[in-house]
């Protein structure tokens, strides 16, 4: 395992006065897959948004990307450094076609052969390849999720932040997404994933964090957590 690609120290986030994230510290090492778990409304999405400085969230604390601070950076600068984001709710663009979604986000990778480009996405997900010219938001729910993942990939990031990628996709596609995640780390892309689907999360991640009411209450390897039925019950209500 390499050194930390993403490091978060004592992060506090607020929506107006409501203090959503409290003293969150978290690390994603290079070529690692990390999952953040937690019940609804615990602050998982807020965590990802805080990294990218999205919305009107007031963020205090340090976020380091490859040792470099992101505290003063703007959203687009952060993203440009190599952080891609699959948002919850997909946030596709109604006025762009499926193909345009991929074109607009496309940023060439370091090597032409290994890079993610729109064509490669279409190969990987034939279900959206057939719908190239359709407006992104006219797709079915699952297709939209796939497109959102594709859109993040074509920017050829170093780390991928995914917010509940399993939502809306069917079981067969879930398997493919899990495979994809493993493949990605082999290609040099680290992953930070937020998930409700415990099964998926544990199959993808090597390490997990659990958020309860905006605080990290558990940190450990995926195997440990899988075995730790008590923590699962206590923190996730499984």
């Amino acid at each position, binding site marked *: 395992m390499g050194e930390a690609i993403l490091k978060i120290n004592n992060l506090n986030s607020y929506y107006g006065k409501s203090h959503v994230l409290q003293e969150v510290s978290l690390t994603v090492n290079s070529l690692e897959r990390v999952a953040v778990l937690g019940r609804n409304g615990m602050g998982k999405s807020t965590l990802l948004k805080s990294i*990218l400085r*999205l*919305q009107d969230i007031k963020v205090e604390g340090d976020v380091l990307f490859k040792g470099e601070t992101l505290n003063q950076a*703007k*959203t*687009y600068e952060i*993203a*440009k450094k190599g952080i*891609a*984001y699959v*948002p919850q709710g997909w*946030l596709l*663009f*109604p*006025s*762009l076609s499926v193909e*345009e*979604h991929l*074109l*607009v*986000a496309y*940023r060439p990778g370091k090597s032409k052969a290994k890079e993610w480009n729109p064509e490669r996405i279409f190969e990987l997900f034939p279900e959206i390849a057939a719908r190239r010219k359709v407006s992104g938001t006219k797709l079915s729910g699952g297709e939209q999720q796939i497109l959102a993942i594709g*859109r993040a990939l074509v*920017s050829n990031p170093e780390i991928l932040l995914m917010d509940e990628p399993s939502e809306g996709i069917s079981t067969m596609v879930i398997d493919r997404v899990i495979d994809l995640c493993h493949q990605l780390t082999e290609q040099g892309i680290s992953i930070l994933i937020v998930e409700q689907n415990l099964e998926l999360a544990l199959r993808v991640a090597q390490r997990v964090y659990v958020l309860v009411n905006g605080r990290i209450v558990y940190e450990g390897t995926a195997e440990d957590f899988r075995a730790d039925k008590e923590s699962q019950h206590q923190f996730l209500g499984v």
Partner: protein
Amino acid sequence: MFLSTFFNGLTLAALLFIMAIGLNLSFGLLRVVNLSHGAFYLFGGYIGLSVLKSTGHWWLGVLCGALVAGGIAAIEEIFFLRRVRGKSTLETLITLSMAIIISDLIVVIWGGNPKMIAIPKALKGFVSLFTVNVPIYNLFLLTFACVIGLGLWLLINKTKMGMIIRAGVDNFEMVSALGINIRLVFTLVFSLAGFMAGMAGVIGGTFLMVAPGEDWRILTYTLLIIIIGGMGSFGGTIIGSIIIGLIFSFGSVYVPQFSLFLMFAPVALTLVIRPKGLFGRTL
């Protein structure tokens, strides 16, 4: 007479097109109801006039008018519009306030008298085409509009720019999260729209005149075009300009007393039947 009226309608359409396509940039693409577009036009026109008077170069006037208007647009975007992005009511009010301020500044700087921008020598006079006399300036206007139209079309449809803008309007933040400096893009587009308006101001001011109040008048016609053609539609802007241009020229020849009514009635009808204009995109 029919033919000459037709030509005149087209000329007017060409002028209005240059205005409308600029407005449609901010309107259709940025979704900003830019009521200061008319003010950019007039301010550009006056700048052009002053430059012409002091240097004698008409083309330099066109360039300066366009640049200054573009600059004001950039200022408006950076200092005001940017801060209320997405809140359409506030955006509208900001552009309205700017329009009021600029209109009044114009009176302060250039006084209330109407002014004329002389047509450059090279474009004076007329030629005979199909039995009608067509002023050279009119031909110039037509050509110019075509060039501008083509250029913008390429920019919007053949570059990534167009996609970025459309995406940015749909979801500003998500585009930032893709690593694109969408703020800058918006500023550029808005300034480009201002630039076009300023340029139209000098060219149109030469064709018509520059005077206080022109800003609102031109703005109204431009709005009509966009309404009838559909917001954000390139083809719609062309068709809209031609429709309005022709209605105006035929109206003012055959029924001048009802020309205003003639102008608004078809537009209203279009909107009632097709609420998004002839070519409006369904979003």
